[in-house]
Structure formats: structure tokens, C-alpha cells
């Protein structure tokens, strides 16, 4: 059964490997994610993708298809996906209406994919651009969930492998 689920997940992910969010993950919009993160006091995993982005597709297919990673990230984070070229409207907590593209401009996101880890308040903890492996995401998760970011840079953390 686990094998069938895994294959199904793989098929779902590979079928939309053109930088939509990976299937099988409960990604929500940025404003909804902020609301849920505050409500549940969970950190946010924010995925900036772009339509047609190759490394987004590669990450979707080769990394997000991992069943254990999926389980870990659904447990630990509110998952948010932003299409960096989209005109989809968002309402920020202070009431301002912006678009997903504008969010990228404000957060200085100028490549894709970019993965951001945020406090429930929206404050940025870690910015991780480019293709990432399962191991990368597991390391980032330990860094964020373990609170190491309060005292160490990600490079210091990875060098010491706490």
C-alpha cells in the first residue's frame, strides 16, 4: 500500500512538474498561510516558483516526491506557494492589497525557485535559493525547528552539523 501511495505521489508530482506547486502538498496562498501560521503558531515554508521554471520542476519531481519529506514538512509548516509572475491578489495583515508578483518584488526574490522559512509573523528566518535535495530540506528543517537560526548562520550550522 505504501509503495502504491509512493508511486501515485510520484505520478502526481511529475505530471505537474512545470512549476506549479507539487501535488499532494497542502499549499495555500500567502495571506491564508500567514493567518493559519498565527492561528496554529507554526512556521511558514514559502515556495516561490515560476511558470516554466526548470529547477522548480526538478525540485518538485526529484525532491518533493519523497514521502518522508512530505510528511515532515506538512507536520512542521504551513506551506505557502507563490507564483512569482502572478497577478493573484493577497491581503497583508495590515490591510494592504498586493499581488504575488509584488510580494516577490518586496522580498527581493529575483530567481526561482526560492524557498523561504518564516516566523508566524512573516519575519524571514532563512532564504534558500535554487534546486534543493531531500537532504538539504531536512538540514534546513533541523536548523529552523531546532531554533539554531537564533545563534548561527545556516553555513555555521551546516559546518557544525548540530
Amino acid at each position, binding site marked *: 500500500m505504501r509503495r502504491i501511495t509512493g508511486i501515485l505521489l510520484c505520478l502526481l508530482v511529475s505530471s505537474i512538474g512545470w512549476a506549479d506547486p507539487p501535488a499532494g502538498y497542502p499549499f495555500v496562498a500567502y495571506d491564508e498561510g500567514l493567518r493559519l501560521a498565527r492561528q496554529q503558531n507554526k512556521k511558514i515554508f514559502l515556495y516561490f516558483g515560476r511558470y516554466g521554471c526548470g529547477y522548480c520542476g526538478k525540485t518538485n519531481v526529484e525532491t518533493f516526491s519523497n514521502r518522508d519529506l512530505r510528511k515532515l514538512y506538512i507536520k512542521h509548516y504551513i506551506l505557502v506557494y507563490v507564483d512569482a509572475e502572478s497577478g493573484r491578489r493577497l491581503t497583508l495583515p495590515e490591510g494592504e492589497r498586493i499581488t504575488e508578483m*509584488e510580494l516577490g518584488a518586496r522580498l527581493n526574490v529575483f*530567481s526561482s525557485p526560492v524557498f523561504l522559512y518564516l516566523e508566524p509573523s512573516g519575519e524571514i528566518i532563512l532564504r534558500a535559493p535554487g534546486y534543493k535535495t531531500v537532504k538539504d530540506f531536512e538540514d534546513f528543517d533541523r536548523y529552523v525547528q531546532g531554533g539554531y537560526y537564533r545563534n548561527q548562520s545556516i553555513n555555521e550550522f551546516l559546518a557544525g552539523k548540530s
Partner: protein
Amino acid sequence: MRAVAILLGYLVASAVFAADWQFQKPLVVTAASRGVFCHLDASGRKSLAVSDDTVAIVWEDNRSGSAQIYAAFKKIDADGFTPPLRISDAGPAYEPAVAALPHGRFVAGWEANGRVWSRLISPTEKGPVTALSSHPAQQLTLARAATEGKVVAAWAQRRDKWFQIMTAGLTVQNGVVVPRAARLVDDEPPRDHQFYPAIAESRAGVVVAWEDRRQGATRIMTAFAPPAGGFGPPRVLNDFRASRIARFGNGTGAMRVVLATDGQANVTAAWLDKRDFEGGYDVYAAVSEDGGKTFAADEIVQDMLGENTPQWHAAVAMSRQGNIVVAWDDSREGSKDVWFSTREESWSDDNTFPAMEDGRSEAHPVLAYDDHGRLHAAWLELRQGASVIRYVQGMQRFTPP
């Protein structure tokens, strides 16, 4: 000695094309209090227009408690704008555009309740609101038509699964905006979304540009229709780089195209382009001498000092005299500033408008030339949660060689 000669040669050559800008004192169009947010983000960035001696700026803000559309006007020689005039009736309303009619009158349009709407406005009148779309629609843009007293419009309209670009001519009869001959720009069965149109009409015909996702990544496409003729097949405007990795991706992206014309047959397109993906979006432009039927090769607009910084919110204007200016914002000096470049034989070094201040975000420029070749520009300032729309008027003075 040879080096001195080369330097002298360069200085002489530079002087031939040197052009100074003279700007008047910047003015505040509207200043919102904390918690009120202004937006200048029409599709095609057509939020500013000039009719004879009257300037109009339209924007969205939430001062009433929900997003609504406002306009302010000034005579070209006046030292201030009229108080904001609310022009949307229902709402929330978003992303307004404006285009000039003769005699200080304008057509304004916006999105509300999932449709696009339009009305005549001037400092002294508001016509009734007209629906331009019968289906779900968004991202309306407007431009002055080649025929005096008319406006051309384009918007993205949903048909079944996909948004497609529609156009229409707009006339005004007894103060009422009347859409004419609404049609699809590309009547092939859609394969993916078309978004964010820009439109320009010259004596050679009408050209529409838009974001198109049919190739699996966002491309800029254009289509041209001669006067009284149908649109030809869409053409891809932007060069792009194929994906660097096998099996994944469909190449670099591009977005938010803008168009301007001198009214004759010259058209300039500008857009944000990610072909140099490591530096984020750059501003690219292409010019046409046949009304937009064909465009010359892409040209990068910003100078080398802006190369490693992403550019955002490109706007373009062309004067009746053929001058071209492109403006955008970037953070090359730390905070966001509005920059602009003019095109003579090549794109000039980048300039800033007056009133740029350190520590303040200045972004979202909009531009228009008047018939006398004066440039009108506005942008959005953000500081400590409050937004201001600022305006300036300038004139380019060419230095004799």
C-alpha cells in the same frame, strides 16, 4: 597620446547626443494616511494621461474601507492637483487605467466584481459606468486611438478554462462610453492563459502585446491589426533562454509588457525579462516602425550600474516628436528608486527623477508625454506604512554639439 585622442573623440561624440532634463518642482497628487495604501498598477501601466492642457492620474486606494478607484486632475501649468474624485461606484475595485480624449476629458476603466468597467471623467463630470465585459474579466488597459475622440481598450477575459485577450474600440456618446467591435486578439483555441495586455494604436493600425503561457513559460506575444482589418497571427516578442536542465522547464520568463506610440507608425514595447536569471528581471525594449506589425531586435534598457539588481514595474512613453522614455524601479543604491532611460541611437545612462530620497521607497512609475513633448511622470512613495503619489513634469533640452 593616442589615449588622449580616443578620450577627446569620446567626449565629442557624447556631446552630440547629450541631453539635459529640466524638471519642475515635484507635486503630491494624493497623500494617504497610515493604513491607507495607494496603488499605481494598471495593466500596461496606463495610470496617467494628458488631454490638451489637463493631466489626469487614476489610482486605487482603500481610504473608504475597501479598494476603490480615484482620479485627480491638474492643468499643465497649475501647481497642484484637484482633490481625489472617486470614480468607482461598486467594489472592491482594482487596477484602474486612463486614456485621453480631446478637450480635457478622459476615459477611465477598472476591474470590479470580476468584470471590467469604464466611464467618462473630467475635472467637472463623471459619465455613467459602462460594463466592457460580459464574462469574467480583469487587467483592463486603455490607450488613445489614432482617430481623435476614440480610445482603444484591451483586457483579459475568461472563456471556459483560460483567460484570453479581448480588445474593443471605445467612443463616447452623450457622455456615455460605448464599446464597439469587441473581439479576441487571437481566435485560435486557447491552450493556456493570456494575461496583462498592453495596447497602442497608430495610423498604421493597432498592436496588442500580452503575457502568454502557451509555450509552457511566460512569453511576450504581440498581434497587429491594420485599420479596419483583423488581427494577424501572434508573434513572440521576447528572446528567451531555453531551460538549462534536461526534462525540466520551458525557458526563462518575461512579464508586464507596456506599449507606447508616437501616433504615426513608431511603437515601443518594454517589459521585464529574466533571460539573465541570476540578476533577476531586466528591462528590455523593442521598437517597431510599422505600427507594431514587426519589431526590431530586443534591447536591454537599463545601464551597467543596474545590471546586478532586479528591475521592476517598467513603463514607457513616446512623444509625438518621437522621443522614447522607459522608467522602472530598482534598488541599486539600497532603497528603491525610480530610474529612467531615453533612447536616441542607443539607451542613455540611467537617470532619476527629482525628489528621490534615501530611506524612502519610490516605485511603480507611470509616464505620458503631452502633445508638446513635455514628459509627465508619477510614482508611488512608501514610507513607514504611508503611501504618497508624487508627480513631476519635465522637458528634455538637447545640448548643441
